[in-house]
């Protein structure tokens, strides 16, 4: 699965800081309200991108002050196609971790580790590749997928 060819509808260079991720997502929503108002009403894409970008900040580009990554998005009628690129650390196993299937238990409540499960539930496709020192995460996020995931 590759993103659509051609120039992305939205492209952001994002500093590897949580505040920059928040600012990017707010800016992206503002852009979409004008250019893609129906898609802007969905929320799955924002949930997925928050998780994926946070992973880059906290893992791939951790300990790299001044580093940045790029977010490119192509909007189609059915889905948002996204490519995230960074030149940080590779994933330890070479692949995204498998989603956690077990429900949380009240006596051992986890405070993290939900990110990839959320991404997996809301994306139609998730593909990660490491090429020439670059991490490349491609996502297909169907619009209004969150409603389906609840069923």
């Amino acid at each position, binding site marked *: 699965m590759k993103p659509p060819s051609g120039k992305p509808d939205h492209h952001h260079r994002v500093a590897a800081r*949580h505040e920059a991720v928040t600012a990017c997502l707010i800016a992206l929503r503002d852009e979409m309200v004008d250019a893609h108002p129906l898609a802007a009403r969905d929320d799955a894409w924002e*949930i997925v991108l928050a998780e994926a970008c*946070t992973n880059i900040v906290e893992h791939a580009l951790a300990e790299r002050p001044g580093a940045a990554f790029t977010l490119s998005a192509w909007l189609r009628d059915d889905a948002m196609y996204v490519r995230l690129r960074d030149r940080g650390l590779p994933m330890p196993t070479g692949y995204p971790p498998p989603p956690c299937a077990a429900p*949380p238990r009240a006596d051992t409540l986890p405070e*993290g580790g*939900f990110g990839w*499960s959320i991404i997996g539930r809301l994306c139609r496709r998730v593909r990660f590749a490491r090429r020439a020192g670059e991490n490349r995460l491609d996502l297909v996020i169907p619009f209004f997928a969150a409603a389906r995931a*609840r069923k």
Partner: protein
Amino acid sequence: MKLNGRQLGDAYLVTVDVPRIDAAVAIRFREEMREQIEASTGTLILDLGPVGFIDSSGLGAIVAAMKLMPNGRRMELAALGPVVDKVFRMTRMDSIFRIHASVDEATAAHG
């Protein structure tokens, strides 16, 4: 971060008056929740009505705050918006917390 707390009889209501609880504010949220917990008694009702967006870092901060509650005290949630509700359901955290549809419902439950 703006957390507004007030004692309501046996319960303590904390309104999270911010539009997002995400990775950028998660640590500050947890620390300010610690202050709210220490300053209060009884069941703590967390009003998430003003929160339009949450990510798993924000969710983790709420779980961390719940773990700060002393023995014998509970934390309950109220007024989850659509995104907050989705994230709680997808992670099945809705099975861990008692969730009230509104603040009025939550406060009525604690008379």
